[in-house]
């Protein structure tokens, strides 16, 4: 949880924000994870198989919300990432996530995304003013939605979260280029071997 104390209409306001994985549809962590330890579950959230984690930490850098954390040794590089796993065992057994279950004032709710969006919009209409629903459109839709009634800055939420262009360049361009270059080189060398040997054998016979 994040606790923000902000001034509002000359008064102090306390804003509590659940600071855990937002389960993005366009998820930087899923994009960069080399072992697919971080992946989209059929239900839409970003699941995580800790056994598959190599500890590379690329997800830590790729997350627009600065959520994943790496625990381990900096020296040897042996580490494991940690993040909210959407209580995968509970939600796939028909239970709500633990955070929803435990939240005393019932500020968190859980359900089908469409129903949650509808509920959030209704709440936004009820609050009026600057209230808005965060996560409906961001990154093709988050699977964690907030009704916020202060500025996003006060809530410490990024205004236009995006997967950074360097991640896109690296994953969508550089990797395929790498395969292409190696393929062309390997093919060229094979061709060179066959041509060079054939011509040298021929030259020898010609003598």
């Amino acid at each position, binding site marked *: 949880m994040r606790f923000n104390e902000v001034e509002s209409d000359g008064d102090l306001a306390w804003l509590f924000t659940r600071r855990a994985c937002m389960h993005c549809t366009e998820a930087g962590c899923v994009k960069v994870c*080399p*072992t*697919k*330890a971080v992946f989209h579950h059929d239900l839409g959230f970003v699941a995580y198989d800790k*056994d*598959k*984690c*190599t*500890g*590379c*930490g*690329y997800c*830590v*850098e*790729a997350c627009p919300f*600065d959520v994943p954390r*790496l625990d*381990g040794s*900096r*020296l*040897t*590089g*042996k*580490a*494991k990432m940690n993040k909210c796993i959407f209580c995968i065992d509970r939600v796939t057994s028909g239970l709500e996530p633990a955070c929803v279950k435990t939240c005393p004032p019932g500020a968190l709710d859980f359900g089908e995304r469409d129903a949650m969006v509808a509920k959030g919009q209704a709440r936004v209409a009820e609050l009026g003013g600057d209230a808005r629903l965060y996560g409906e459109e961001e990154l093709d839709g988050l699977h964690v939605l907030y009704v916020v009634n202060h500025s996003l800055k006060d809530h410490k939420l990024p205004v236009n979260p995006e997967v*950074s262009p*360097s*991640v896109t*360049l*690296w994953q969508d361009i*550089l*990797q395929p*280029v*790498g395969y292409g*270059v*190696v393929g062309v*080189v*390997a093919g060229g*060398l094979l061709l*060179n*071997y066959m*041509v*060079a*040997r*054939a*011509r*040298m054998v021929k*030259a020898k016979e010609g003598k």
Partner: protein
Amino acid sequence: MTHHELVKYSRGARWFHWTITIAALVLAVTGLFLYVPAFSSIAEGGITRVIHRVAAVIFVAAPLLFFLAKPGRSLHFVKEIFTWGKDDLAWLKAAPDYYFGGDEKKMPPQGDMNTGQKLWAVVAFFSALGFVFTGIFMWFLKDTLPAEVFDWMVIVHDLCFIVGGAMLLVHLYLGAIHPRMTESLKSMIKGKVSAEYAQSHHGKWYKEITAGEGDAKGTPGGQGEKQAH
């Protein structure tokens, strides 16, 4: 024809070469496990990342140790690989036909390192610098770097891998497989080449080290020892 052999690579140079080669191959393979999704399951335990770091230390230590042991030869080598002239242009023109099995007499005589070898050394030099520079950041400064900067470090690391890795493939091929490079691999293992091979592949070098010996015979441990590296 003489049956003498000439010293091409000193013991120190060969040790350095093979140490850094093995380190580079281990680094390449353990790095590939993170680069190629099909291999990534091998990296799951994280052990390949530990091996990558051990190999990285060797990869950095080997040239430093070689430099401390033989500073003069190291500097001479670096100077040589960055010295380019019109002879190199002639090599570039003749190379495609030569390496595709054409008449070897059309290839102008080469020094102890030909233009292609110099080119490889230059690429290896710069990609090694790139690897080490970005690698240090990725290893030790991950938590301090802004995410964007870290991403760029990874991208440069990958670029070095693509360029350096592609050239390494070419180097391995020319050193060990190409039908014309009959003594290349042997010379890096045993240190010597036959006079015939030296004449046909490194004519200029052969002339230099056998100059003043009358019948143009090289003797191991003679002048070749001083000039070879």
